[in-house]
């Protein structure tokens, strides 16, 4: 959920929006924000499933340290979405286990 009004931060400056695709669904994102922020704003909570137990994982540290938020981005697995900025047309997929590198995502 986006915070549209805030007593201290005020109104947000005008933002540029881009579109990313997450598991086939188009999602509106703010240019420059990390992928994880855009997904969280859209209500996504599960970013990946662990390899052995298939446990769900989501954002934990938001500063690139814990690797819980790794997803497959434009075919590249294990991308830390909390520190990777969105780009227009980016294709983001929930990752299962270690993910697979695909030549043609």
């Amino acid at each position, binding site marked *: 959920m986006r915070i549209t009004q805030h007593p201290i931060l*005020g109104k947000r400056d005008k933002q540029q929006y881009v579109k990313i695709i997450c598991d086939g669904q188009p999602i509106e994102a703010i240019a420059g924000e990390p992928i994880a922020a855009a997904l969280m704003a859209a209500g996504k909570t599960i970013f990946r499933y662990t390899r052995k137990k298939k446990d769900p994982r989501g954002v934990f540290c938001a500063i690139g340290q814990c690797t819980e938020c790794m997803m497959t981005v434009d075919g590249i697995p294990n991308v830390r979405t909390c520190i990777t900025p969105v780009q227009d047309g980016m294709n983001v997929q929930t990752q299962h286990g270690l993910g697979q590198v695909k030549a043609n995502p």
Partner: protein
Amino acid sequence: MTLIKDGYFSQTELAQLPGMPSRERLHEGPCVVIECAQQIPCDPCEAACHEGAIEIGDSIINLPKLDPSKCGGCGLCIAACPGQCLFVVDMTYSDTEGTVQFPYEFLPYPQKGDTVHGLNRGGDIVCDAEVLKVLHPKKFDHTAVITVSVPKEYAMEVRTIKIKGNHHG
């Protein structure tokens, strides 16, 4: 109920603060009430008062000491306090009501004339409060300062408000 266990003052703790005006003083006119108890390194309240009513002294960990005779209750110190623990109480507002002026950093701001819930230090709704003034000039740096009137017996209880229907103060 104590400050370090519950997050708010017992009456005994309150009475011992060097920033607490006497009962008599409160009934003479508006006065600041300084609810700062822990000797944290901090002193903006001292400089914020141009009347010299608040004194910290040489060491910034000293508790703010109030000279109630110098305080006119203008409320200019409220937004300057990072601890949000300065309040101005006026027991002389009317025969039955007093006013409380307090810092507020939530949206939406209430509007003048609104009837809102008056909350005590523990976050309990204790009475209705009528909004008299909402100030948020630039120099308060996003800390609004709100004045409400409440029944006199609650003027030393109410420390914030909750807009009716909202889930927090």
